[in-house]
């Protein structure tokens, strides 16, 4: 099945470290910017359907033994706004139950308006301008 290119947001709407919820083709999608790289996850926790976009962005707390703690990958995980299930923003993989649980991840990329304007694309809320950059999702 061929995919359709959707304009999800303007790049300057989602500065590094932030997120934005968008609706594309009837699906709620949470867009994240980690240090300039964009990622898109379905905005629905597989547990009870809480919004991930409304959750806290966190790092990974790990311990090799009691009392030996470290925090890594700061800003690369999101914690569901309800029960705190943690997901890797880069992959949608669950941290607490990686074998059985993941949230839908979409390919997100950045395209300059000058390239997009030739089409084809679907822009549900954006009029594409040549001089802007956009977050694009193919689904």
């Amino acid at each position: 099945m061929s995919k359709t290119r959707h304009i999800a947001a303007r790049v300057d709407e989602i500065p590094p470290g932030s997120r934005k919820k968008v609706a594309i083709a009837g699906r709620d999608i949470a867009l994240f910017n980690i240090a300039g790289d964009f990622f898109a996850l379905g905005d629905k926790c597989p547990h009870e359907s809480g919004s991930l976009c409304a959750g806290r962005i966190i790092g990974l707390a790990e311990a090799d033994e009691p009392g030996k703690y470290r925090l890594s990958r700061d800003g690369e995980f999101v914690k569901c706004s309800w029960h705190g299930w943690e997901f890797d923003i880069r992959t949608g993989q669950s941290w607490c139950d990686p074998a059985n649980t993941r949230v839908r991840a979409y390919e997100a990329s950045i395209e300059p308006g000058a390239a997009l304007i030739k089409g084809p694309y679907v822009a549900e809320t954006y009029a594409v301008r040549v001089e802007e950059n956009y977050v694009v999702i193919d689904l």
Partner: protein
Amino acid sequence: MCCGASMTQDLLDRPAPQRVGAREAQLGVIDCDIHPQAASPQDVLQFLPERWRDYAKTYSGLYRQALADTLSHPRMAPDVARADSWPPTGGLPGSDLAFMQKQHLDANNVEFGMLMPLNRGPGNQRNLEYGAALAGAVNDWQIAHWVERDKRLRASIVVTQEHPPFAIAEIEKRAGDTRFAQIMLPPKSLEPQGRRKYWPIYEAACAYKLPLALHVGGVNGYAPTASGWPSYYIEEQHTNVTGMLSLITSMVIEGVFEQFPALKVVLVEGGVAWAPSLKWRLDKHWKRLKSEAPHLRRLPSEYVHDHFWMTTQPLDEPDDGADLIEMFEMVGFDRIMFSTDYPHWDFDEPKFVIGKLRIGEEKLKRVLSGNARELYGLK
């Protein structure tokens, strides 16, 4: 564990566990645990008599915890709340009725909602006169700010359980007002709940046909375990269960239900699945030790079944969903009542609970609304 593309595909195609039939999803619920919050302390304190408004401003409350009128720790999320429950208009989660209606009462088809006000701790105030005045103010506030503005909501009569005469005066003031559904007691008390000190409150509850509701938690001046205070929130969270076990055991063994056979007790947010093992052990020991408590004329399990109702949230989540249903069968589907804990972080969505309880429409309706409708006489 393989991580190949086919596995990923399987995972993505797996039906979400909370997905339920359209018909079931439309079923209304009675939510036995909703936490209203004051947008500002003045919302509640304005209902105090002038003497106590002045007192609150000058001295504030003195109850059994450090840092009065605060949460001692954030408990997972600021204000213990779902991160998406902060009203767009500002203020604390659970403080804006219009937002609560939009996010919860309307969205989740709530037919009735039981208010469980947790703040300001009237029941734990050491200045008893202030505690009694504060209980009255919290009760007036529930009516004025909530029940009068949304007819689906019902208030809980907050009382000073450490001084039963004041508690009874407050119960008598509210008795007959059907906007109040029950009497709310903190499960952390100076003596175990079955002790005779508290019996006058139970007598009043029976006289006015009001169930008692005990919601887990409470202020941190009471040690949650027999060896004091745990190190982690996850541990403290589990003391909600052990607290309920102690509470039931005390009320049953002290003979509360022999003295007050009409008394009904709702345990809120303490779980359900532990009830069968508690009943088995109490029965076993009673058979051997009944001469110590000859006032008990029935099996402890019979008192438990006849007098206690339990709420669903936070739902136990065994790996095999069939285990949950089997456990609920053992507890008794006639004693389990749906609750969400809105707007707290460990909220349970109705569709999630419905998805876990594949038990047929009759039993499902009992849990979602029927048991509560019957217990509280809701029409």
